[in-house]
């Protein structure tokens, strides 16, 4: 074998090994990525489709990942971008977006019905209820809410994933939580 072709063979072998390592590391993060996929999807089926699209794209474009940087954030950036493309088609038009209420709104609504056992009210809020309420939160707010409150990401990680300033993460998170509680209010009252 000439020196050039053995260099070429070594390079190919190294490339294959790097790619296999990348794929292993990405798959090891799948549970964490799924938490976010489930949070931004209306159903499990939708979350599973989103996971498959995310991983297919990640495996295809693995060479654009810079080794040593945050792979979890890189995967979630792919996921949130794919989900934005989907969300734009399904999102309510702006004039129908829910208005925000204060942070005590949900509790006040429950109290007004005469219900005194708040634990029972919370236990009645099922995964379907919460997924439905989350899907009504505009996606800019929902992405931050899901990353921080369900995915357990720091503000800094969420800012990196969504490519927005930390201050924007905080304001979207606060507004998103208020919108979520407003959406949950009707369900909490109706489920009684």
């Amino acid at each position, binding site marked *: 074998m000439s020196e050039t072709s053995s260099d070429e063979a070594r390079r190919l072998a190294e490339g294959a090994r790097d790619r296999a390592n990348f794929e292993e590391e990405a798959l090891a993060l*799948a549970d964490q990525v799924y938490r976010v996929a489930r949070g931004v999807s209306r159903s499990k089926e939708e979350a599973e489709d989103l*996971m498959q699209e995310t991983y297919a794209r990640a495996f295809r474009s693995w060479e654009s990942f810079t080794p040593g940087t945050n792979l979890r954030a890189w995967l979630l950036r792919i996921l949130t971008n794919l989900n934005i493309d989907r969300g734009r088609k399904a999102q309510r038009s702006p004039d129908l977006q829910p208005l925000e209420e204060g*942070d005590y709104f949900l509790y006040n609504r429950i109290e007004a019905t005469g219900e005194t056992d708040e634990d029972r009210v919370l236990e009645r809020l099922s995964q379907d209820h*919460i997924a439905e309420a989350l899907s009504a939160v505009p996606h800019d707010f929902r992405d931050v809410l899901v990353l921080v*409150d369900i995915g357990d990401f720091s503000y800094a990680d969420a800012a990196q994933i969504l490519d927005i300033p930390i201050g924007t993460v905080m304001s979207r998170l606060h507004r998103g939580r208020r919108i979520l509680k407003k959406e949950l209010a009707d369900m909490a009252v109706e489920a009684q």
Partner: protein
Amino acid sequence: MTAIDKCDWCEEVLQPFLDRDLTDAEQKEAEGHLKDCEYCSTRYRFEEKLRRRVVLVMVEPMAPALKQRLSQLRLEL
């Protein structure tokens, strides 16, 4: 500041309080109000429980079949 104004303020700082994002002085002020105000402390406790409930119902393991499908998406070597 009247008692009602204080509850309005307390509602405004509920999220940064639970996120530990207030200044020390604000945190102390909120704790002082919560100690004396059942209206606000009930609502703060509820918020904590709601956050826990959201995580509890939304976080679930991925189906093993999905894990396998993701693995199959790996490129052919």
